[in-house]
Structure formats: structure tokens, C-alpha cells
């Protein structure tokens, strides 16, 4: 993006925690897929635990994190959503003075997070066809219930694949039709915006570390629930 009259400046659009979250999740979804397809269930469980930790962290970062990570910053009501979609349909839409997730993208973030969280939760309860492999919470269910969980775990993955495709299609659309490269800022964090747009505020890395540690603690607690319950 070159100077368009008013001048531009480079801002940190996505902070490090958001970017680390995004790319770790990308890699781990691939890992989960591959380990499931090749029956590496021990690794599949580890990958799932890591994803669960990431998701819990991202939810907390959506409340206590940097400006563009916060749900209150990018979740808009239906009227804003419709306005945005109408605006996007204009053949050469002028850029809006907003940064971060647009109203449509914001809801797709929520959609993806919800799907992935449900997927992780289902995995915790899933039982393999022969009862040999199971998620850490499957002890709390019967074999049939665990098989149902596995069935929905499998179905939901198809839906997640669809959402990921939509996500990629949107990126491609912004790249080709809007000349807006969304990938680069997700790697470097930086984006050039008009001078009139102020840099979003960022929260320190120590808070991210604390929240990540808490997320890990919650995951460890959850996967050890049957053992804890047995001790009571």
C-alpha cells in the first residue's frame, strides 16, 4: 500500500500472542488430522490437549488481551453486520477506517472457535471402535455414549474443514479482489494504515504468559478429572 494522499504509518495490528496462537493452531489442526488418519492416537491426544490449551488461552485473550484480540472490539450487532456486507458488495468499496477483524470476519472467528472447542470437548469423551483408545474423559461415559461422541467428533471435523476452506477463500478474495494481503500481517504483525487510524493498544507479554499458564492448568485439570473424581 503506497501513499494515498493522507499518508500512512505502520502499526502492530496483531500482537505476538494472537499470531503465535494462530499459527500453532494451524499446525496442530494439521497434526490432529494426520494422527487421526494414521491411527496415532497417543499423538492425537497430545495434539488435542495442545489445541484445547490454545483455545482456552484465546478465549481469555479475547477478554483480557490486546485491542484487536478482544471480542468487544470486533463483535458487532446485526445492523453493523448488514451495513458491512452491503458496503463490501460495492464494486470498488472505499476502505473503512477500521482495523482488525471486520464484522463478518469477527463472527467467523467466533464460529471457528466454537467449532474447535466443541471438537476438542467431543474428543475428550470419544471411544475408538474397539474400545482400545479413548479420550481422557471417556471413563465417565458408557461405550455406546463414547462411540456417539466419536461419531460426532468425526462429523464435526467435516464442518471444520468446510469453515477452514471458507477462511482460505475469504483470504484469497481479499487478496485478489481487494488487493489486501491478510497473510503478511498475520506473520509480521504489521500493517500500513492511514495516519488517521491510531495504533491499537497492546497488552504486555507477561499477562499473556500468565493466561497461557492458566489455560494449561485448566487443560491438565480437565484431562485428569476421572482420576481426581476417583480419589474423592
Amino acid at each position: 500500500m503506497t501513499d494515498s494522499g493522507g499518508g500512512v504509518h505502520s502499526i502492530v495490528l496483531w500482537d505476538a500472542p494472537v499470531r503465535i496462537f494462530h499459527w500453532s493452531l494451524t499446525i496442530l489442526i494439521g497434526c490432529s488430522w494426520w494422527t487421526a488418519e494414521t491411527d496415532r492416537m497417543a499423538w492425537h491426544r497430545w495434539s488435542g490437549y495442545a489445541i484445547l490449551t490454545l483455545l482456552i488461552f484465546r478465549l481469555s485473550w479475547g477478554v483480557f488481551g490486546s485491542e484487536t484480540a478482544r471480542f468487544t472490539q470486533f463483535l458487532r450487532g446485526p445492523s453493523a453486520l448488514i451495513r458491512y456486507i452491503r458496503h463490501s458488495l460495492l464494486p470498488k468499496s472505499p476502505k473503512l477506517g477500521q482495523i482488525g477483524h471486520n464484522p463478518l470476519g469477527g463472527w467467523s472467528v467466533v464460529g471457528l472457535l466454537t467449532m474447535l472447542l466443541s471438537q476438542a470437548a467431543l474428543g475428550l469423551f470419544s471411544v475408538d471402535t474397539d474400545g482400545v483408545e479413548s479420550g481422557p474423559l471417556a471413563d465417565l461415559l458408557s461405550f455406546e455414549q463414547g462411540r456417539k461422541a466419536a461419531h460426532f467428533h468425526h462429523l464435526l471435523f467435516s464442518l471444520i474443514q468446510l469453515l477452514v476452506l471458507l477462511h482460505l477463500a475469504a483470504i484469497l478474495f481479499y487478496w485478489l479482489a481487494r488487493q489486501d494481503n491478510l497473510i503478511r500481517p498475520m506473520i509480521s504483525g504489521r500493517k500500513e494504515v492511514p495516519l488517521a487510524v491510531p495504533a491499537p493498544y497492546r497488552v504486555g507479554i507477561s499477562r499473556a504468559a500468565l493466561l497461557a499458564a492458566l489455560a494449561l492448568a485448566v487443560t491438565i485439570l480437565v484431562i485428569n478429572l476421572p482420576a481426581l473424581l476417583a480419589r474423592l
Partner: protein
Amino acid sequence: MGLHSKKAALGLTLLLLAGAAVALDAPQIISARQDSLKTLGKTVKALNEELGKPELDRALVVSDIQTIEKLAVALPSWFPAGSGAEAGVKTAARPEIWTSGDKFQQAASDFATQAHKLASLAATGDADTLKAQLKATGGTCGACHKEFKRKDD
């Protein structure tokens, strides 16, 4: 009606009856097979959980292992020819069970061998020994499923 045509009619009737019998049997065989495999899975899951507990309930462990061994021995009999997808019922059994020589029988016998080993440890083995042997036994389930079971869910 001449003798020939009577004979032909009788033959045709018998043929139809036989056909009907096969058509009736296969769904029954398949559903019984699915029930047995479900029992097997259920038992393996229960045993896995039992072996994870701080104190073993030996009677429960022994009875679960006996169930597994019994089912492992019976397993090849659950797959008579004609009880595949051609029966017209939903089944995850792949045709390779009947078309790849004795590979399926070999896979089933691997399972029985491991199940026998598990049974020989049932009365005396500690949790870790049993867990390891259950894992080896479970490995034969997976190995057979990989080749002979359709991934349906």
C-alpha cells in the same frame, strides 16, 4: 403337468427358498456380529478402566479377560461367506475379508494368540503387565480394522 415340469417347479421352489434363507440369514449374521464386536469393545474399555484404578478388582479383571478370549476365539465364525456388503445391509466389513486369501484368518488368529497370552496373565499379572498385554492385544484389533474394516465414523 408333466413329471419334468413338476420336478422343475420343485427345484425352482427349493432354489427360491434357499435364496430366501440366505437373504434372511445374512442380515441376522451381520447384526449378531455387530453386537459381538460391540460387546468386545465394551469389555476392552471396561478392562482398560479397571486397570487404571489404584486397586485391581481381580474377579472383574479375570471375567473381562475371559470374555475377550472367548470372543477372540469365536471371531472367525462371525464372518461366513456372503455376510459382506452383498447382503444389502449396512456393514463395515470389507470384501477383502473374503477375497485376500487367508490374510483375514491370520489377522484373527493374531488376535486370538494375544488374547490367550492375556488370559494366561489374568490371574496373577499386575496392572502394568496386564496393561501392556492389553495394548498388544488391542494392536491386533487395529491391525485387522485397518485392512478389513471400512472407516464409517
